[in-house]
């Protein structure tokens, strides 16, 4: 009987071919011959797409959980998770409402009741959104108490405040989409306030609602804002935020 190849043999063969080597650049931990040396550790960052986010080395104190509490990173993780679960929900949702064609609400019922994993994904999306508002807020508090907005990081704080507002807007526009009583009236309370904007109040409200009161136009408008426009703007500001962290010399501190 021929000798069966060992796991290491298989691994060696899989890693030692043109395709594998074209995907994983030198220094990648998935490439054959990665050794736990300073050189390979440096290359693991430098030759990786992650190099756009992380430098080769970071300050040791930044690793301590109690410095960042990972809050910025977790906000970003939640943002990614919400994007993925949101895309799933988009497969089953149509932003249409109005007497006789209450499709949006019917879709929500289907997602909760009959679509495979629909309810779980919807729950993840809903609780994830609340969690993100919370982690972004906590992240801001941690940045403040560390004085991490001091020069040269002032502008990144401003970018951060914009991200906070965008997070709130994402959450709020999503709140309307189930088109149930909760959604309709929560959004009514919120948008009534906007009508009190000085001088342009009525116009602001009209543009946001797509009419004088919340209706099918509002639903369509907020859907587009929620799944396309605000995420798009958010990604741009996130890119600037992450880029500035590195240009400002990495994480602040130590205290």
């Amino acid at each position, binding site marked *: 009987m021929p000798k069966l190849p060992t796991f290491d043999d298989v691994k060696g063969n899989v890693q030692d071919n043109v395709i594998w080597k074209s995907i994983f650049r030198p220094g990648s931990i998935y490439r054959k011959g990665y050794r736990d040396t300073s050189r390979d550790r440096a290359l693991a960052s430098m030759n990786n797409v992650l190099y756009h986010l992380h430098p080769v080395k970071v300050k*040791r104190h930044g690793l301590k959980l109690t410095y960042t509490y990972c809050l910025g990173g977790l906000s970003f993780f939640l943002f990614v998770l919400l994007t993925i679960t949101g895309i799933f929900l988009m497969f089953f949702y149509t932003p249409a409402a109005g007497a006789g064609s209450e499709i949006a609400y019917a879709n929500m019922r289907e997602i909760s009741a009959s679509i495979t994993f629909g309810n779980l994904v919807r729950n993840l999306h809903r609780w994830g959104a609340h969690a993100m508002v919370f982690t972004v807020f906590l992240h801001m508090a941690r940045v403040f108490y560390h004085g991490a907005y001091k020069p040269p990081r002032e502008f990144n704080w401003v970018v951060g405040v914009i991200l906070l507002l965008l997070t*709130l807007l994402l959450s709020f526009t999503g709140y309307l989409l189930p088109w149930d009583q909760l959604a309709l009236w*929560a959004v009514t309370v919120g948008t009534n306030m*906007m009508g009190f904007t000085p001088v342009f109040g009525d116009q602001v409200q009209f543009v946001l609602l797509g009419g004088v009161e919340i209706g099918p136009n509002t639903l369509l408008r907020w859907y587009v804002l929620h799944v396309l426009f605000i995420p798009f703007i958010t990604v741009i500001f996130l890119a600037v935020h992450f880029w500035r962290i590195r240009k400002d010399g990495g994480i602040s501190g130590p205290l």
Partner: protein
Amino acid sequence: MSDEVQIDQEVYDRLIAEGKSERIARAKAKAASVRKAKIAEGQTLGPRPADQAAKALSDYRESAGGGGGVATKTAAPAEAGGAAGGRLTPEQRAARVAASLGNGGKEPASIGVPTSGAHTHRLLALVPPAGIQQVQGKQQDKVYTWPHLLLVEFVALLAVGSLLLIVSFFLDAPLGSLANPNDVPAINKAPWYFMGLQELLAYFHPMVAGITMPGVAVVLLMAAPYIDKNPSAKPENRKVANMAFTFFVVFWAVLVIIGSFLRGAGYEWVWPWVDGLGFTL
């Protein structure tokens, strides 16, 4: 210098006697013996001041016969011996390399730059050792991103991911009855993160509560780094800033809690243990 630096036994013994660790004592003792050797050779220790470095550089250039190898000179066409556009011919470049290495036109053996015409890349600058300024800065304590940081991030991601999954497994997102613009519900609230504003609405004119106050809050928040000019990041040096921010946060938190839990039908004050929780996430 020989490969193995001798340690200064006297310093070593003294540091050990002071209770320093063996590793530190040895490092310091080595440094001491290097220092001694340098003093014996008549060198000055410590970083060289900038003007001294500049002088050393200009001395060096002079002794190297108006040496090239300095970027600014290479770029100056008038001096480059007539080559078009300030570019040097390979021969001229070879001569410059030789001159800047200070061996007066002989073949430069030491730096491994081929000087034949075959290689035509430009040598931008050659910095003579005397021109390098010593900078004294503290070495920061750093670790590799891989594996240290990435591992921490991965664990954090797994922890929060699984927590969220567990919550989502057991707790369903609310879905009320179909939206009906003619049926105003008794309890009518904004999402929790806007409850602070809705609570303000109970005390102020809507323009003040809905536009002015949040507007001022956002502007203040964005302006915070420009208002707070204190350069220190230590908590003990920034009591005022920390107190102001804490006040700001507590103020909103109290409003959100009141609005979320202590307001019921018709936005009247209620106690949740009497009238039930008028709050949906």
